[in-house]
């Protein structure tokens, strides 16, 4: 493949994030399971009992649509691994809530990279002229098996992007992207199981690092870009350490990644992880800034994007609540409330 680049470039016309109100300190999880200590992240975002991927996707989508000011969408794609229904698309409920019917709707699954995949597909539909604008959402209510290490980070949240033809109001152009996959089972969930399973050290080098380093290296080779060309880099963030490590290996600095690094505060929102990081970056990016976005999905694969911020970003300030304000607007809960919210208690 090398590089995916549409003849007519597609652009981000609007975006919106959603982070639930509730936070579970990882000290609480450690208190219950380990008698003390904490996880690698400080806290994680927890969806309330009456929230799910559908409700959060609609909230983020509404904000993206509010910013984009498009009337009709040719496609609504939701990338998630926590669909409320195994059969019945999340995307049609989102479409209905937005009043969109003459649209292509689908749910995508590729663990934590389903959201960025949605962005690539929408970019292709726009770039080919098949649609004028589409909505790509990455959103999850990630479930951690009680007592498992992943419980520290499995969190809820995500972001939505309206992608359409590049116009004078466009916020950022999706210049190009690439994708690198292999059959690598680092983390998986069989069809009727409730919780996923995962390997431990194997999730590092052969999975996360190999795939992100591969996709980004291909991107650099095909475009001729180097790390210093980018103002920001956003990586998938399963924990606070991996994105910092992969950034360093690829030649990025802390200054470049810190705006999009949210795992310490909210944990890993799976398909929402790098999309929320991108939203946080767009909240402060300036025209001319170049952004590298590299997701990772277990199973496994990585999507890497080169995104250029445009002048249209100026008009977006103040239109929607920022990611920062969502990070700040929170209340702490304890392990028992979290268990009730996420329906982990057997009745």
């Amino acid at each position, binding site marked *: 493949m090398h590089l995916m680049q549409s003849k007519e470039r597609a652009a981000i016309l609007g975006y919106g994030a959603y982070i639930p109100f509730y936070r579970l300190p990882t000290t609480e999880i450690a208190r219950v399971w380990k008698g003390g200590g904490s996880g690698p992240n400080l806290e994680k975002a927890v969806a309330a009992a*009456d929230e799910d991927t559908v409700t959060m996707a609609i909230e983020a989508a509404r904000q993206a649509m509010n910013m984009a000011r498009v009337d009709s969408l040719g496609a609504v794609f939701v990338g998630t691994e926590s669909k409320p229904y195994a059969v019945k698309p999340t995307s049609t409920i989102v479409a*209905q*809530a937005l*009043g969109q019917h003459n649209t292509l709707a689908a749910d995508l699954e590729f663990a934590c990279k389903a959201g960025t995949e949605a962005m690539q597909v929408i970019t292709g539909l726009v770039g080919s002229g098949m649609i004028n604008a589409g909505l790509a959402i990455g959103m999850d209510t990630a479930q951690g098996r009680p007592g498992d290490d992943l419980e520290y980070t499995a969190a809820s949240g995500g972001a939505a992007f309206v992608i359409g033809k590049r116009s004078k109001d466009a916020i950022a152009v999706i210049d190009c992207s690439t994708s690198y996959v292999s059959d690598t089972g680092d983390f998986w969930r069989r069809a009727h199981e409730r919780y996923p399973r995962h390997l431990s050290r194997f999730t590092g080098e052969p999975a996360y690092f190999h795939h992100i380093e591969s996709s980004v290296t291909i991107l650099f080779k095909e475009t001729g870009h180097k790390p210093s060309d980018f103002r920001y880099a956003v990586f998938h963030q399963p924990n606070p350490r991996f994105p910092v490590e992969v950034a360093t290996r690829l030649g990025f600095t802390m200054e470049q990644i810190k705006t999009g690094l949210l795992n310490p505060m909210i944990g890993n929102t799976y398909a929402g992880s790098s999309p929320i990081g991108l939203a946080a970056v767009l909240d402060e990016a300036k025209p001319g800034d170049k952004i590298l976005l590299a997701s990772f999905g277990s199973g496994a694969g990585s999507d890497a994007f080169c995104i250029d911020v445009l002048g249209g970003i100026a008009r977006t300030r103040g239109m929607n609540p920022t990611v920062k304000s969502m990070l700040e*607007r929170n209340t702490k809960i304890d392990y028992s409330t979290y268990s009730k919210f996420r329906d982990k208690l057997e009745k």
Partner: protein
Amino acid sequence: MSIQYWRIRDRYYRLIGSRCSDCGDEFFPPVYRCKGCGSEHIEDKEMPKTGKIMTYTVLHEPLPGFEAQAPLYLAVVRLDNGARILTQIVDSPEDSVKTGSKVRATIRRAMVDGDSGQIIYGYKFIVSS
């Protein structure tokens, strides 16, 4: 159960109520006849998503299906267009729920038919900070 709510899903998802074409009054839930001027010239209209709490209560024993959300904060909200709506207040600290508090709409799971039935989504409100 689900068909009764399916037919009004746009009202639940987008707060689509009624507007009297003659006098301009707006209502949610929808009406067949204007409560202001009595006209039957009623059209669908999307309601504003912000308003204020007129009164509220804290229900310790909600209807079956809502137990997990007890105690339920319920309020009569006067939307910015004057329409009054009965709704649940969520994600709001206890001391922020007062007569006069400003609120904004959100979408949530309203009812769930067990583990295998359908999920009904609908409006709830949050106190604006």
